[in-house]
């Protein structure tokens, strides 16, 4: 399947081109960019990132672990102090808080790896469409389409201010 790559300087036209391509029914699109651009955040996938679920679950596991570990250990090794309860919630809130952050943070890292598909491939093995230019200043919009659509995609990319269009895979 032919893969066409348009190279851009700015994110605005990339978003415009990708939206037009999506509207015309092209679904196999990829954008490579040197940094995060808000304009490109939801162009290919409008759903919020799944990382948020990881953070939430990690945080919840953390808070439950923090409180339950402290309470269980206080009951398992009871120290009688002035007739007060063995398990004391206010100081254990610190443990609960710390573990919420700890587990939430580690889960966020795992979420980034799983949702973002990292490590990608066999580390150094890049997509054919990837170029070091995309870790310089330029943005790439890559479209896989059938042979009959190549001319249409080429024209659309050029019409949206792509400064170069090339065929990565014929």
């Amino acid at each position, binding site marked *: 399947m*032919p893969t066409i790559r348009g190279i851009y*300087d*700015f*994110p605005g036209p990339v978003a415009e081109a990708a939206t037009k391509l999506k509207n015309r029914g092209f679904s196999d699109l*990829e*954008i*490579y*960019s*040197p*940094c*995060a*651009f808000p304009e*490109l*955040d939801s162009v290919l*996938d409008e759903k919020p990132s799944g*990382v*948020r679920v990881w*953070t939430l679950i990690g945080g919840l596991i953390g808070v439950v672990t923090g409180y339950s570990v402290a309470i269980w*250990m*206080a009951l*398992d090794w009871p120290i009688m102090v002035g007739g007060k309860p063995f398990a004391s919630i206010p*100081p254990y809130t*610190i*443990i609960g*808080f*710390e573990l919420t*952050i*700890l587990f*939430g*943070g*580690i889960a*966020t*890292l795992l*979420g*980034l790896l799983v*949702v*973002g*598909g*990292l*490590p*990608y491939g066999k*580390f150094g*093995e*890049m*997509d054919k469409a*990837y170029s*070091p*230019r995309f*870790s*310089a*200043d330029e943005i790439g919009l890559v479209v896989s389409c059938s*042979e009959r*659509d*190549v*001319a249409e995609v*080429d024209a659309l990319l050029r019409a949206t201010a792509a400064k*170069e269009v*090339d*065929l990565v895979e*014929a």
Partner: protein
Amino acid sequence: MTPPPAMSVADTMRPPPEPPDSKINEDLLSVMYHRLSPGYLLLLGATILSVVAAGGTWVYQVYIGLGIGGYTHPVFWGAYLITFVFWVGIAHAGTLISAILYLFRAKWRNAINRGAEAMTVFAVLTAAQFLGIHVGRMWKSYFILPYPNQRGLWTNFKSPLEWDTFAISTYATIAIVFFFIGLIPDFAIARDRAKGIRKLAYTALSLGWQGTSLQWKSHTRSVLHLSGLATPLVLSVHSVISWDFAMSLVPGWHATIFAPYFVAGAIFSGFAMVLTFFIPLRRIYGLEEYITEYHFDNIARFILLTGWIVTYGYASEYFVAWYSAVEPEQTSFWLRAFGPYWLSTWVMLSCNCIAPQIFWFRWARTTPWILFTVATLVNIGMWFERYVIIITGLSREYEPAVWGVYTPTWAELTLFAGSFGFFAMLFLLSIKVLPIIAITEVKELAIHDKAHGGAH
């Protein structure tokens, strides 16, 4: 109509020209590839020497015992613990810049956040060692962790020292995670331009990052979530450390203002340390285009603000001591200013309250040598603040018959100097292997500015 075959379009396409590299990449990666100057090597050698001296002293201390320190009844928290609190304080600026300023969308942070995050990680690593050094038998430090043991004994979660363990280990972990996540795209930039062993290392560290939309979306979301988690964390860490003192009944320690006052002091000293390292770095590697007067101006404003919060803390302590009509409290504060440790107190007040006042003037906030001088004074003042709190508090408790005078010994001072050596050594090594300025974040601003005709 029959569409044209694929190759006919390809034939019309010119071969892509030689990829132009980004000026930002070239400028910021050049710090890593800059020739090792004699000055750099000399400085690195000095830091390694101080670490070796500190390591030797520590081994000697393990052999002889904590008695080589200046501990004397009733002062059993000395320079090691002061140094621990000092470095944890330094560690606060990085996360503040990375997390809190990120949430506030303060874009100026982009040029300095990576270096500050690196300083956070290194400062926490430095601080953590001093807990082990302080307890003497470092290899028994794991006693503080709740692990199953033959006696069925668990740790006491009502103890501030236990809270501290959780706070510091969580902070260190989150700081490292934050630092690493930020570095992934920059490692990919380095990978695409490196050769040999560096290429292998950056390839592994970048985890095959290509900057796809899915990767960036996950990355942006992760940074946002980590910022959300790290913001309360950074405020809590020094609060928890302050409770090591405030939860006790020692005069001068037992104060509810300790948490906010410690947090402000931590940010105050952290920003000062950022200046201490960034001013020479900017000068030596010609980074004036990226770390501008605007950054210095903002950092100096932070120092001025937090300096006033710290000053308010000092004033409040004295006022409450007087107003409480509790004699040991009043005596403790009187002796802080006019007792055997008067010099430490006045150094603290001069460096932390008076020196930053020059930052009311814009010319001072943008003149590197003034910034560097004030930052150094603040670093000194903040170490003395912890000295004043810990030592004057313990040495002048309730019963005059058991008062004592603590003076740090050569061993404690060598280990203290070694802590600076260790921190500086890590910083010096890191600038040669890590992009010390967040390339992708600087680029984000630059491309945005270019797209809008330099409107921002």
